[in-house]
């Protein structure tokens, strides 16, 4: 994995999105957004329901074909090199399940084969240790609690040691203690591998803790962006939660960055 990471210059963004646009019939879900996500850090994609976060993530994963614009991931065009890139990425969401009747171990084995992992048994043992899944390995996925399922989904997403991890509400439905250990694990993983994370979350405590960069979306457009501290200061609020509510209800405070997120070339 190191060699592939090194193929990008340190300053190159891990995700480069230019004028990304998606329209479903008459509805514009994502309206020409541009942003960059820094390599080796966590970028949070925030916004209320219907803001366009899930559509954006689906396009970044290649599950959804954009109506326009360009996505470059790890230095390669996503639409042209999707399958090569998918080996270097992964995704976790509590809203996308794994097969219910398979045990946790069987699920991880299937996905390990899909990523063509070497030493799969030892990799599963390692990830089980790291995420404390030992007791769950031989239990059916469908019999697990919501929190346990989230941990298994995260284990699946880390199986291939991705350079880019896309997480959709990774700690939803977890108790505070488990959520904290998940965040700690993600931070350790990031420090160990230099991986980048794109995080969609409604948990602002999580965002403040993990994200170096925040992109705020509303009605398919980027309405603001910056570090959590900078946004809190700019909106004269006490926390990201208050900033989120303000933007979700009122839109951007100024016209600083309409449609364009951090480091988009036109704003440089």
């Amino acid at each position, binding site marked *: 994995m190191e060699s592939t990471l090194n193929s990008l210059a340190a300053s190159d963004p891990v995700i480069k999105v230019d004028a990304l646009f998606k329209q479903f019939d008459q509805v514009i879900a994502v309206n020409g957004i541009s942003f960059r996500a820094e390599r080796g850090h966590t970028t949070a994609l925030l916004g209320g329901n219907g803001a366009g976060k899930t559509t954006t993530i689906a396009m970044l994963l*290649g*599950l959804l074909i954009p109506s326009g614009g360009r996505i470059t991931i790890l230095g390669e065009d996503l639409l042209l090199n999707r399958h090569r890139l998918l080996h270097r990425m992964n995704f976790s969401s509590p809203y996308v399940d794994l097969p219910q009747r398979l045990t946790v171990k069987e699920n991880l084995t299937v996905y390990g084969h899909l990523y063509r992992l070497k030493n799969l048994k030892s990799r599963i043992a390692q990830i089980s240790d790291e995420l404390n899944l030992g007791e769950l390995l031989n239990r059916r996925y469908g019999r697990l609690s919501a929190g346990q399922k989230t941990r298994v989904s995260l284990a*699946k997403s880390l199986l291939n040691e991705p350079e880019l991890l896309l997480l959709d509400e990774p700690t939803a439905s977890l108790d505070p203690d488990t959520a904290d250990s998940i965040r700690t694990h993600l931070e350790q993983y990031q420090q160990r591998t230099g991986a980048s994370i794109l995080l969609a979350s409604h948990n602002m405590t999580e965002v403040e803790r993990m994200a170096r960069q925040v992109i705020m979306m509303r009605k398919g457009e980027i309405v603001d962006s910056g570090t959590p501290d900078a946004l809190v200061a700019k909106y004269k609020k006490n926390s990201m939660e208050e900033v989120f509510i303000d933007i979700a209800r009122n839109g951007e405070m100024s016209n600083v960055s309409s449609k364009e997120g951090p480091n988009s070339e036109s704003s440089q």
Partner: protein
Amino acid sequence: MAVHDIPFSPRRIGAIVLRHLYLMRTSWPRLLEMVYWPTVQMVLWGFISVFLQHNSSYIAQATGVLLSAVLLWDVLFRGQLGIALIFLEEIYSRNLGHLFVSPLRPGEMICGLIILSLIRTLIGVGGASIVAIPLFHFNIFDMGLPLIAFFLNLVIMAWGIGLVIAGVLLRFGLGAEGIAWAAIFALQPICAVFYPVSTLPAWLLPMAWCLPASHVFEGMRELLFKHTFNSEQLMTASLLNIIWLGAGILIFLAFFRAARQRGLLLQVGE
């Protein structure tokens, strides 16, 4: 807003009915399914009746002709269902999103579906064929090598149809589940499983001869009645199967691309 509760509420019953009427109103596959089975059954048994009126000694002429037809028909049915059911499993478990953010390619998915269909068909039809030996003193394996040719042609046609159905499921979600079970039966009267193709009305004959299965069942009857293997029928079936399987693959890929354009891989369901 306190509402007095009653143990049996017509309004609540109405709500349940309404919930499914809403669903039916927006789902043409569900509406189609309601009229589908009665129509198909009526057409199939109508043709059988017409044929037997004039050929009452047909069954007596060849031992096991109906059993052979049923077992070979099941190759077609199970082969198609094998692909559709595996795909349905992924939809039930809401797993498609995870599958297609892995490096899995649609072509690999198709190959996996075909292998699973083959396994399911061999187990299902193989088991039934073995049970028929002690139960009816009928051994379909007595057909010998032609049986392999019949099997392969039927299962390949089944894969073509199964892939189209998998594509429809991807595009229309669980609303099209009924089609997965029922679609193949629309072809049953036309591919002349239980009677010769000549029984069909003239306007249906061109359609019948476009189905590889029609040639297989004609070949099967020729083998059972005349003890001759008609290689021409099998060659025609094989050539038609190239078109059927090729079309099935292309249609699945087209539906897959449509699903990626509409964002259905993350949300395919009801």
